[in-house]
């Protein structure tokens, strides 16, 4: 397996490069763009399986659950090679790869770890049931109710913004077990199978035409008590572990992918003698954003180095908040520029299944997913101002 070469950077990288060239069809993106959304998800499943055969699907996991404890430097090598080759992005596995181990390894019981982690390493899809219509930025005000009934919890309520839940086998779910307690104190963390009776999954059509998100309606859904993660009413603490699980490697890969996309965009423009290169405003704005992307990529590397060096959580959390704000604002500016460069042609609704290149208005429209999700940028500004700069709370 390629992962066995991880201690020799150049051999490791070149093995990944060669393997991608042999394994991934060169026209995969064109095929994906012609296909349906479901076919694109199936393609991700296939790609995940291929990665798993080489030990590259969950290398950052502990060895007893299918990984090799690959450190941040090694994860960066893998992410860098994937970005360089423009491989399919594993959006359907975001929760599986990060939030699930981030929760179960520190907070799950040994039985839960053994039961759920190895299948996840082989491609079981997980989703997250945290947000509710009335609990977005103020997540702790969630109301989805769980009542103990013998050896089960009975759940009634609603969840929203549950990414890829249509494709998931399991869900990490936050519920209210004690409505009398203060809002952070009455929350519990459960694992729910997505085929449980009483669960209704309704896709939400997004502004980009896709339906990654769904709403989850739960009516008398019965979840065994053994699926409780951590203690009852201690779910908020478990959820903090979940949310802290992404340490910046995803942001790193996103930044690297954008670097290659911008580079290719410019290279193609030069080769085609594109008219926009003669437009002072467009050309100069492009260079402005290219420089900002470089700044963003440097900030992410600094964050990852700090993680590796074991910097205190308070300092890395602040750097993460700053990077989230800087990088997502930048992605939106890049989308805005591409949309203006592409002009009327950019308004043709083309497929974006491959997510591999700038397609007209697409990146601009999709950029709002970046600025809104993962803590809206307004929440990030509060965090940076209050916890980072020490400005008083309002």
């Amino acid at each position, binding site marked *: 397996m390629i992962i066995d070469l991880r201690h020799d950077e150049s051999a490791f990288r070149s093995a990944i490069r060669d393997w991608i060239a042999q394994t991934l069809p060169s026209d995969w993106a064109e095929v994906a763009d012609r296909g349906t959304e479901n076919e694109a998800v199936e393609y991700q499943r296939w790609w995940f399986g291929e990665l798993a055969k080489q030990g590259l699907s969950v290398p950052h996991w502990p060895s007893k659950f299918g990984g090799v404890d690959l450190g941040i430097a090694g994860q960066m090598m893998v992410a860098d090679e994937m970005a360089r080759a423009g491989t399919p992005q594993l959006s359907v596995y975001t929760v599986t790869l990060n939030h699930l181990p981030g929760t179960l390894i520190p907070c799950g019981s040994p039985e839960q770890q053994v039961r759920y982690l190895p299948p996840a390493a082989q491609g079981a899809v997980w989703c997250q049931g945290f947000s509710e219509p009335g609990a977005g930025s103020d997540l702790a005000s969630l109301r989805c109710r769980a009542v103990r009934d013998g050896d089960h919890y009975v759940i009634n309520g609603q969840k929203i913004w549950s990414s890829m839940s249509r494709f998931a086998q399991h869900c990490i779910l936050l519920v209210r077990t004690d409505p009398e307690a203060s809002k952070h104190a009455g929350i519990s963390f459960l694992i729910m199978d997505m085929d449980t009776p009483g669960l209704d999954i309704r896709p939400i059509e997004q502004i980009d035409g896709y339906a990654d998100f769904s709403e989850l309606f739960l009516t008398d859904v019965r979840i065994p008590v053994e699926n409780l993660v951590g203690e009852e009413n201690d779910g908020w603490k478990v959820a903090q572990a979940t949310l802290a699980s992404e340490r910046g490697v995803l942001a790193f890969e996103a930044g690297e992918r954008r*670097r290659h996309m911008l*580079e290719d965009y*410019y*290279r193609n423009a*030069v080769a085609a003698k594109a008219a926009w*290169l003669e437009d*002072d405003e467009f*050309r*100069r704005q*492009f*260079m*402005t954003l*290219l*420089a*900002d992307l*470089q*700044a*963003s*990529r*440097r*900030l992410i*590397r*600094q964050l990852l180095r700090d993680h590796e060096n074991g910097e205190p959580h308070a300092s890395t959390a602040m750097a993460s908040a*700053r990077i989230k*704000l*800087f990088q997502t604002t930048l992605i939106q500016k890049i989308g805005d520029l591409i949309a203006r460069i592409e002009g009327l042609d950019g308004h043709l609704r083309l497929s974006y299944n491959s997510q591999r290149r700038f397609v007209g208005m697409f990146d601009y429209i999709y950029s709002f997913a970046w600025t809104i999700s993962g803590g809206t940028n*307004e929440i*990030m*500004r*509060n965090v*940076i*101002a*209050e916890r*980072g*700069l*020490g*400005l*008083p*709370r*309002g």
Partner: protein
Amino acid sequence: MQDLLAEVRESIATVLDEQCSSLAVHGFTDGRNALDQELQSLVAELGWLAISLPEASGGIGLGSQGLAVLNYELGRASAPGSFLATSVAVEALARSEAAGAEPIAGLIADVVAGSVTLALSASMDVQRTDGAVWLLGDASAKSALIAGEGDDIELIDLDASKAEQLRIWDDTRSVISFPMSACKKVMTLRGLRPTLVSLYALALAADSAGAARGTLDRTIAYMKEREQFGRPIGSFQALKHRAADHQVNAKGADELVWQAAEQIDASLPGALLWSVMAKANVTEVAARIAGDCVQLHGGVGFTCEYDPHLFLKRVRLDEMLLLPNGALRDEAARAFADALGNDDDVLEIA
């Protein structure tokens, strides 16, 4: 090297916090002290102009990163004086082919000893119709570097009696006008322009990033103290969100300074590209931050008594020096296209 740089930064910052406080700078701009001269002696005594210089020129060899650290801290303190021009010019001279020979070797030694200062062409392209050249530097500067033919740079000697001190908005620095007829050419430095432009752009970016940091830190402190409607104005979301944006953009600006400095020191193909892009982006970010810091101060931001105007005027000057940012981005765009054509990876980060 990174440890040494951090130490150097710390020691410069400590000295400037003490010697170049807000009070001292206001004393200088009000004509009540000669802070620029005092700093000039201090800089010579502490050897700050030798930080970047190669050991062969009597320096400690911290290169462009040293140059960036020095100018960043000077910007953060809005320090008065001609250090940016002098530090860039002496570093460029030390990197010229003629560095080891007279008269340049002697000139470098005099600069390090603090007995002379240098000036730089305020603009690297504008030919003034009145036959004068505008220089960034003191009227007493001994020599200056100005644009020559093509990639050449001219070293000229200056006659202080012919210098006209221009009255500019930035009270912390000096721009002089010199009749071209009074400039005495000392020598032509062949092919030095890309080096000079890179260093000049880097120093301007560093000064602006430092100034943005300085005015932002002071503004955040003010937002915690100043109360209206019975609470500190920093508790208002409309203001604190702006502070958060400035904080994030200031961090991004810092990274562009280090990106440029590392590229120059490693003589990478992206050295010129990243220096000019850093100058263009950072000076604009700094102008936005410094402008909003005036606004965030409210009425006192419009007074001379408070600090924000010093920084705003300083970064606005930085923005206009060297070359217009549009022209720099055009130069970067050409360089980027060339790099792609040559398969030079100028986006790689070590």
